[in-house]
Every structure is written in structure tokens, then in C-alpha cells.
């Protein structure tokens, strides 16, 4: 984005570096990034670093408050909460990333095509987006999960299919402005194919807003998955996800409040970190920002 329109003020410093410099100055966002990397790494390594297998029950032990043996306590079936939280993070983060990736692909392709085609095609494609916008999608995801059973792949696709609309609108707006610029006309004069112009010259130039919106989509997707699992419509025990743990915790909180508090704090902290990073990236990648 910034490369195409701005006059080069700081000669020789690539915009990427400038953006990173601006990002680094945002203390809360850097903290959030570190927290997120730690969370992601520990979730990824969950099978290795979990103190116990996350499905291991110990009915004699039952629910115990945090202790030296079980740092975050155990649930009513005697399962180690820390292990379940780590494994739950795998699912929650994986759903967040995969479903965002699905929405990213659909949204960017659709938006770029619509904006690049222009005219009547663009009009039609955007009318379709308008109509889809008005549909109650959360409701559809719930129906989908009930009707076709709770399967993880379907969850990715369903959530991804819901979240691409705004991305398509953002990309289309950017592309509309881009396509009239000289370098795109030059590419056309050079006889490049539409596919090549789209892939090599248009899409790379909308990357800034796309990155920002992607970072802000991940927390929404994680939230949607947790919401479904909380209602009992997403991930099912003995698998684990943060929403599922919060649901269990809410049912047990009168006797075992730690079962609610730890997953709740983990989920909220993750959402906070992702939102802070998204906001910071928006400021850092804004071409109008001071350098």
C-alpha cells in the first residue's frame, strides 16, 4: 500500500522496517505479542510439556483446588486442568488460524476479482455480499453443527465461510483504487494476463489492510468457536477447547470455581492480546502515520 502512493521520504528504508519500528514502540502490543507467542508455543508443545495426559481421569481424586501436583487443580473427573487447558489451546488456536485462513482466501480472491473486474460484474458480486451480510450467520453455524454433527473440519469451513464478507469488501475497495494507477496500466500494456496482474501486482499491494483485518478476525473466530463449544455445539469431551472448559467450569463453579476462572482468564487474555496486536498493526501499517 504505502509503496505505491507515497513519496520516498526515508530513502532506502523499506516500509516493512518502518512499520516494524513503529510497532515496536507500542509497548502493550509488544507485550501482547510475547504473551501470544508463549501461549502458541506451549499449546503447540502440549503433548510434550503437559504434566498429565489431558484425558486421564482420576475419579478417586475428583476435583481438587490448585496444588503442587496439579498447578491449576483438577476437574470433577480428576483430569489435570493445566493439561486440558494446554490441549484446549491447540484446538482453539488451530480453529482460529485455520478458519481465518479460509476466510482470508475466499475474501481476498472474491474482493480482488470483484474490484478488478469492475462494472456490472462488480455490482453483482457486491450485491451478493450485501445479501449475505443480512443473513443471520451465527444461527446458520448453529444449525450446521446440529444437522451435520460436530465435526472439526466442518467447524473450520463453517466459521471461515461466515467471516470472509468484510474481508472481501475491504479488498475490493482497495483494488478499485489501485486498478486505475499507472503501474497497473503499464502491466496491461505490457500484455500481462489478468491472472498475473492480479496475483503479482494487485494482491501484494493490498497486503497492509489485509494483515490488519486478519489479525482482528482471529479473535472473532476463536470467540465463535468458544461460544459454540460453550453451548455444547462445538468440540466435544474428551477433547478439549477453551469454550468447552469454560462451559464445564460454569456448570461446576459453585463448588469448583477454579474450573471457570483459569480457562476464562486464558481465553480473555488471548483475545486481548490479539486485539492489541491488531490495533497496533493498524497504526503501524497506516501510510499516513508519522515515520
Amino acid at each position, binding site marked *: 500500500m504505502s509503496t505505491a502512493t507515497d513519496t520516498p521520504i526515508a530513502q532506502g528504508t523499506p516500509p516493512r522496517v518502518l512499520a516494524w519500528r513503529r510497532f515496536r514502540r507500542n509497548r502493550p502490543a509488544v507485550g501482547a505479542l510475547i504473551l501470544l507467542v508463549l501461549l502458541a508455543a506451549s499449546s503447540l508443545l502440549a503433548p510434550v510439556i503437559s504434566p498429565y495426559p489431558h484425558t486421564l481421569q482420576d475419579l478417586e481424586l475428583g476435583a481438587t483446588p490448585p496444588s503442587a501436583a496439579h498447578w491449576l487443580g483438577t476437574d470433577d473427573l480428576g483430569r489435570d486442568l493445566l493439561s486440558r487447558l494446554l490441549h484446549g489451546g491447540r484446538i482453539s488456536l488451530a480453529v482460529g488460524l485455520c478458519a481465518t485462513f479460509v476466510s482470508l482466501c475466499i475474501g481476498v480472491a472474491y474482493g480482488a476479482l470483484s474490484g478488478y473486474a469492475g462494472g456490472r460484474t462488480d455490482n453483482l458480486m457486491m450485491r451478493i455480499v450485501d*445479501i449475505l451480510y443480512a443473513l443471520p450467520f451465527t444461527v*446458520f453455524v448453529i444449525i450446521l453443527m*446440529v*444437522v451435520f454433527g460436530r465435526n472439526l473440519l466442518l467447524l473450520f469451513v463453517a466459521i471461515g465461510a461466515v467471516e470472509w464478507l468484510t474481508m472481501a469488501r475491504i479488498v475490493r475497495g482497495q483494488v478499485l483504487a489501485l486498478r486505475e494507477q499507472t503501474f497497473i496500466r503499464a502491466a496491461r500494456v505490457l500484455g500481462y494476463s489478468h491472472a498475473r496482474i492480479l496475483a503479482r501486482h494487485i494482491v501484494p499491494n493490498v497486503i497492509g489492510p489485509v494483515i490488519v483485518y486478519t489479525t482482528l478476525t482471529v479473535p472473532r473466530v476463536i470467540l465463535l468457536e468458544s461460544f459454540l463449544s460453550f*453451548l455444547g455445539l462445538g468440540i466435544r469431551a474428551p477433547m478439549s477447547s477453551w469454550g468447552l472448559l469454560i462451559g464445564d467450569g*460454569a456448570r461446576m463453579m459453585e463448588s469448583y470455581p477454579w474450573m*471457570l476462572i483459569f480457562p*476464562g482468564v486464558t*481465553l480473555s487474555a488471548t483475545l486481548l492480546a490479539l486485539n492489541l496486536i491488531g490495533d497496533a498493526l493498524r497504526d503501524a501499517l497506516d501510510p499516513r502515520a508519522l515515520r
Partner: protein
Amino acid sequence: MVAIVPVMLKFLLRRLLSMIPVLLATVTLTFLLVRMAPGGPFTDEKQYPPQAIEQLNRHYGLDAPLHIQYVRYLGNLLRGDLGPSLKYPGRSVNDMIAETFPVSLELGLWALLVALVIGLAAGITAAIRPNSALDTVPMTLSMAGICIPAFVLGPLLVLVFALHAGMFNATGWYTPSDRVLPAITLGATYAAYIARLTRAGMLEVLPQDYIRTARAKGLGECRIVGIHALKPGIFPVISFLGPAVAGLISGSFVTETIFDIPGMGKMFVASAFNRDYTLVLGLVVFYSVLVVLFNTLVDLLLVVLNPRLRMHT
């Protein structure tokens, strides 16, 4: 004002016409989704004998070809008839919505009140002195509001204020005090968004020339902020309110489930679990109509409030 009326009528008419494809798409998609389900509504749980299932299917018209059922459903829909519930014999979907909607409506209005009062107050306070403590504290809180979802906040509120402090009942919908925790749970996220939108809107308006003029005329700060700046400052909030209000009053799945409130949201989750297809379909249709209606209302309100928009309508 005279000139506005025909413009408004045209605008309204166009919006109402644009409702048709949206509603048709919603009905069709939901209808197909629900009918594509493996197994009928009577095949699971209880083991009915095959003749009974056949009879049930015939009774509810489920034995007809799909397109006939679809046309029949649309026909009934045009007459405002959402059909019978499949799992509660003898009860119509219309009755069940009529019973649960007022509950959700009341909860939604309380939550809206919470959201507007807290959100506007926090947003305006933050915008008056940007980057001071009066700005950072409410904005940090609103970030927290966005990041603590209702299904975490609700149980936490119950834990602290109902189970430990004993100030409220943990669940139920009987006494006036039963409205407090659900309204906060449902309204908190909206309050957080409204606070951020209000702050952004006000920050855009406050440096403008006409505000300086108002100051130069010696108007009181309250009058400037509360009247001159607020009106254009809350346009973003108003456009946010369209879908928000529809979501609030049509029943929150999570809040109603947590507090065991007999509203539309809880009924929707239950009907989806029960595979009560006509009830699911009826609720989705009702919900979509609400969303479209509120979006139209809000757009109308924006045109009334903002003269600059009248040119384009």
C-alpha cells in the same frame, strides 16, 4: 421538512423492496439446511415404530416432495403462519414465539439501557480529555469488555454476586432483581463497543470549526459537548445500533442459557438440539425480519439526523 417526506417514502419503499431477496435467501437456505439433515425429526431418540413415523410424516406434510413442501411453506409464510412445532404436539410456532419474545424483548431493552448509559458516558468522558486518565481508564475497561465474552462474564458475575455475596438469584426470571445480572452480562460487550465508537466519533467532531465557533460565542461546555458535538458524534453509534438492537432483543443464546431465562434465544438452542425443524425455521425467519427492520429504522434515523445524507437517497 416538507421536502423530506417524499424522499423518505421513496427511501422506505426501496428498503422494503430490498428486504425481499434477503428474506427469501434466508428462508431458502435454512429450509434446505434443515431438510438436508440425515434422518428426519422423528428418527432419533425415541424408537417410534415405522408406521407411526410414516403417519407423523404424513400428518406434518413431510412425505411430499421437497419442492412442494417448500412452496407450501412459503405460501403459509405469506399468510404469517409458521406452522406447527414438531416436538411440542398441538402447539404452533407462532404461539411459541409470542410466548418467548416478550421475555427476550424485556431482557434486550434492559441490556440496551445498560449499554447506552455506560457506553455513551464512558465514550464522551474519554473524548473530552484525550490521553488523560479520564480517557485511558474507560478505554482500558472497554477493551476488557470486548475481550471478556458473555459466557465468561455471566458465570463470573453469578459466582461473585449471587453465590458469594448472595445479592441476587443465580438463575431465574421472576423478581425485578433477576433482571440485573443478565442485563449487565448481555449489555457489557455492547457498552464497550459503544464507548469506543462514541469516543472516535466525538474526537472527529470536537476539533471542527463550528465547535470553535460555539466556544467563541461563549456557550457552556456542557451545551457544546452535549448538544452540538454529540449529535454528529454519535452517528457511528447509531449505525452500530441497528444490528445490535436486533441481536439484543431477539434473545441472546448464551445469556438466556446461563441464567435460565425462558426467552427466544434459549428456545432456539433447545429447538436446534431437538431437531424441531419448523421451530428452528420459524425462529430464523422471525429473527431475520427483525434484523432487516431495525437496519431500515436505523438508516431512516440517520437520514433524519444527518442532512448531508439526504442528497444521496
